[in-house]
């Protein structure tokens, strides 16, 4: 019996993934607080934004920061697939209720699940690069 237990335990030890390559991704991996960074341009125009976002099951339930030089409030949500790929839209309002949005067309979460890099566009179709850094 003891030998069987030891053999099974050894097999489990060999099968359990070790280190950053943890298995699979789930929407719950987005839960918590993230810092969002965006930069894009088109011809003579530059767009940039940053903010602190709180996610719950993929939805931004709280978010504030800056859009260009104006204070901004954030909303929207992201979809995280099982392979770590990510799409979605981070939108917001600034100044006197004016709206903006950034669409992540192709993104990826790292294996440690504490960073996301993405590419896409803003609401005016200006090309953008995005980073999200998990803060807790």
């Amino acid at each position, binding site marked *: 019996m*003891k*030998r069987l*237990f*030891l053999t099974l*335990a*050894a097999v*489990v*030890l060999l099968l*359990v*993934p*070790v*280190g*950053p390559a*943890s298995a699979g991704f789930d929407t719950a991996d987005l839960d918590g607080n993230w*810092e969002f*960074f*965006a*930069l894009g*341009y088109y*011809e*003579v125009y*530059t767009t*940039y934004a*940053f903010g602190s976002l709180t996610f719950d099951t993929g939805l931004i339930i709280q978010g504030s*920061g*800056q859009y260009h030089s104006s204070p901004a409030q954030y909303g929207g949500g992201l979809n995280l697939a099982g392979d770590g790929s990510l799409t979605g839209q981070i939108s917001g309002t600034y100044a006197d209720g004016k709206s903006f949005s950034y669409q992540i067309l192709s993104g990826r979460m790292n294996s*440690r*699940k*504490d*960073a996301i890099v993405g590419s896409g566009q803003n609401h005016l179709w200006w090309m953008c*690069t995005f*980073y999200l*850094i*998990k*803060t*807790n």
Partner: protein
Amino acid sequence: MNRILSVVILAGLLFIPALSGPAQAVDFTAADMEGAWHLHAFGAYEVKGTFYYGTITLNNEGQVVACGDAAYGWSPAVFDGGGLIIYPDGQVGGRLSGLSYEWGGFWIAVKHGWMNLSKDKITFLAEDYESYQLLVTMVRVD
């Protein structure tokens, strides 16, 4: 002997999950910035775009103490001053400065930045001395 081996294996089974997934409840100090970092920045302003890159070494107070293989646009450059500060929650601020062969002195000021929980990456939005809006990422070398 078997009992000891069983205890060791069980301890290993309990320890392994701690190695997977993101770190949680992390505190940050200036010492977390010590070491060499690859810096890459891309930015735009009006009709122009630019980039910076370089390998910079920060001391345990976040000050730039060494630089290698750096450029500002197509000009060779060196980051030779300034530094970054980090707050206990991971937020990063500060200003990096340097000298390019073609255009002389430059600086990059952090608008909003954070270190990741693994402490191997710093990301920030910044503005440089020519009003370029920059998205900067720094990846730890060692």
